[in-house]
């Protein structure tokens, strides 16, 4: 179970290779990559700056990964989240989950993303030619998280 919060970019190929090669009992690797989009709500984005709460972020992400591990039969999880100033097409987040079979890995990976979006202390500020604005939380993210309560 690895959690990294960093300003530097990450190499998806290296990260996924070391995840899948860790154990020959791994049959499935599901991953999610989030990247900065060029447009949000009609405005062209120049930069996206991620602020976070360092003392809480690591703990919150580890708690989410642990929760996923208790819910599904996964072998390992990886969460890498960037902070600082990013631009369109930059990678923001990588979540990867390995398991023996695919169903568990798909569910755990989506669960981690849904919880990360609603529980991990990150805040995005966009800069466009119209100025800066804090990104608003989306109701759809709360709904996505609640699906897992059932």
């Amino acid at each position, binding site marked *: 179970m690895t959690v990294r919060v960093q300003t530097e970019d990450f190499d998806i190929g290296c990260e996924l290779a070391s995840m899948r090669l860790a154990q020959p009992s791994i049959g499935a690797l599901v991953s999610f990559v*989030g990247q900065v989009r060029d447009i949000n709500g009609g405005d062209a984005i120049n930069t996206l700056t*991620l*602020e*976070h*709460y360092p*003392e*809480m972020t690591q*703990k*919150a992400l580890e708690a989410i990964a642990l929760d996923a591990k208790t819910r599904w039969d996964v072998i390992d999880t990886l969460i890498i*989240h960037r902070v600082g100033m990013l631009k369109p097409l930059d990678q*923001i*987040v990588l979540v990867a989950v390995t398991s023996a079979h695919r169903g568990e890995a798909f569910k755990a990976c989506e669960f981690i*993303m849904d919880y*990360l*979006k*609603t*529980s*991990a*202390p*990150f*805040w*995005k*500020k966009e800069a466009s030619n119209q100025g800066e604005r*804090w*990104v*608003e*939380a989306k109701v759809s993210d709360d709904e996505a998280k609640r699906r897992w309560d059932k």
Partner: protein
Amino acid sequence: MKIKVLYFARLKEAVNYSTEDIDLPSDIKTVTALKNYLSKRGEIWANLFNGKQVVRAAINHVLVDDLAAIHAGDEIAFFPPVTGG
């Protein structure tokens, strides 16, 4: 009762600093009570906590709701709904 209060994102910009140490009266025992107490400082604070925009709280790095109890030495953070990922 001494506590530490942290502000993030929009809230940090509104108060124009990120952290402060506060010596609370002993009757301030919950997050709600702390919000009301801070609101009396003036307009900036009243606007932050008037409920028009959601303010989330964490105590000692764990998300809590407004009924959560505050204890001496706690680190209490206020911030908008999170938008990572």
